[in-house]
């Protein structure tokens, strides 16, 4: 896999969305920087591409290709270019990981290739409420589970409830025992986007990852930003960090610590090596405080 540009900022990998500085690159401009595409061959027809400030996947089967997030129009064009280096088979499916625009713009590029766009059904309300000319509406949606087959290569679209959003799909590739998790888990990083993700579900987040661990025999994961692959332990670690954060904030509330002081009072030494810990722990704790205040 030759890449147009190897200047890829791996430092953007604080979960939720990227917080990188703009790298010097000739790639397309995105709200998060200008990045070239870089593809990694996972094996047995599965590839992951980093482009436009995010990461996606594509699966090549006997009868066609399935793509994850299109990311943005220029990124989608790059991704299509990367696919065409590998196969001329038709693009059959695009699967949106959730509804956030930093992942799902550019679907039109694949629709024009004949792709059918899928998302979890809860995404439809968000996508229709806040239309974006670069976001193609899904053609099909599912509720709990959907298997898509591109010919001796399948992916399971799995919904494990609200986590980073209320419509996040865990894309499971059973042949590879790999799950593609976008934004809910950024391997060994705390919660990003300033630590205060708007539509995340701080408590249900834990239940969702526990369900994934209990029900899906995945061995590795591909994230939605940053490096290409991480071990199963990255998911477990993220769940434990979230639970520790919930417990620590609740403990401060129960202790009577004044609310304004709680974000800075929380300390989780066991997780101090997570990326973004020093910068975002207090903001992460503040988001948990809001949860305990308003029930969201």
């Amino acid at each position, binding site marked *: 896999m030759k890449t147009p540009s190897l200047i890829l900022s791996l430092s953007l990998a604080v979960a939720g969305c990227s917080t990188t500085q703009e790298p010097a690159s000739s790639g397309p401009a995105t709200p998060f920087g200008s990045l070239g595409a870089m593809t990694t061959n996972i094996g047995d027809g599965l590839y992951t591409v980093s482009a436009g400030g995010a990461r996606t996947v594509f699966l090549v089967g006997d009868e066609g290709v399935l793509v994850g997030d299109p990311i943005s129009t220029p990124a989608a064009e790059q991704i299509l270019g990367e696919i065409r280096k590998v196969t001329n088979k038709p693009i059959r499916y695009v699967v949106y990981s959730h509804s956030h625009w*930093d992942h799902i713009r550019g679907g039109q590029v694949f629709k024009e290739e004949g792709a059918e766009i899928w998302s979890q059904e809860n995404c439809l309300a968000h996508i229709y409420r806040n239309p974006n000319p670069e976001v193609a509406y899904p053609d099909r949606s599912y509720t709990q589970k959907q298997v898509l087959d591109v010919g001796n290569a399948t992916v399971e679209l799995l919904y494990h409830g*609200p986590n980073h959003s209320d419509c996040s799909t865990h894309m499971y590739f059973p042949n590879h025992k790999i799950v593609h998790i976008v934004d809910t888990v950024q391997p060994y990083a705390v919660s990003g986007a300033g630590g205060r993700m*708007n539509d995340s579900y701080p408590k*249900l987040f834990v239940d969702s990852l526990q369900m994934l661990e209990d029900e899906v025999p995945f061995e590795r994961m591909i994230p939605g930003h940053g490096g290409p692959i991480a071990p199963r332990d990255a998911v477990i670690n993220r769940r434990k960090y979230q639970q520790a954060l919930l417990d620590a904030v609740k403990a401060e509330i129960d202790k009577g610590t004044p609310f304004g002081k709680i974000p800075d009072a929380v300390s989780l030494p066991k997780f101090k090596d997570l990326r973004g810990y020093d910068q975002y722990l207090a903001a992460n704790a503040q988001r948990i405080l809001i949860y305990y205040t*308003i*029930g969201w």
Partner: protein
Amino acid sequence: MRVLLTFILMTLTTSGAQAQSIDLFTKDTTELAPGVYTFGAFSARSLFVVTDDGVITTDPVSTKNAADMRAAIAEVTDQPVKYVIYSHQHWDHVLGGQIFKNEGATFISHDKCIPHFLRHPNDELVMPDKTVASDSEITLGGKTLKLMYFGPNHGDCMLVMQVEGTDVLYINDLVTPYSVGLGFMPDYDPGEWVRTLNELEAMDTWNTFTGGHGVPEAPKAAMNQRRRYMEALMQAVLDGIADGKRLEGLYDTIELPKEFQEMRGYDTHIRRSAERIYHYYTMGW
């Protein structure tokens, strides 16, 4: 809940060019129109409506606040509380209703609140007995309370209320008079919020409003100010994006006109409010 409210209110009262010392917790009852009262303090506020056949209240807020409100109602009337209407689903407004449940009140919310209540159970919450899906009304003892739904804005199950024949609106959290919003509020849709305020402003059936926090009563101009503040903030973020600013580089440079800087909470919340709007424009939420 008192510590929670302190947290929220302190952030709204400790900054701003004309910050004043405000008593957050001294509760009082103010009659806004015949039989229509607001009870509470700056920290949290609810509406109650007295009729010859019983009382309708809005948010109980907390177990402690509900007990105080029950006592305040008893000072005005011997009538029982027949209905409790939840303005929206947030715990800082809807908890503590058991005292009203015990005297037989019927609890009502918009139906979109229910999934939130089910997803995030809370022992202090009384589940609604009935829900409404769109504009609706409750008639009791010759008074009619209109429940108006404007779609998603601050949350997605907000009801705005008005007693027919009065010119006072009850608007929880969509506007806290003369204050900016909390920059880190998670579940609101900025575009839909501005749309809702525009629709409310266009209504010629009211002149003043009472809310879920803040002073007992404020003029329509306070809503107009809040809407223009949000529009100015959203435009400033769009302008920053157009200028090539990103993330912290954008949040740190947002500065709104002086009129808005004088709103309560501006200094504390402007940066995070810009961050929230940036997410809206880059992620669609």
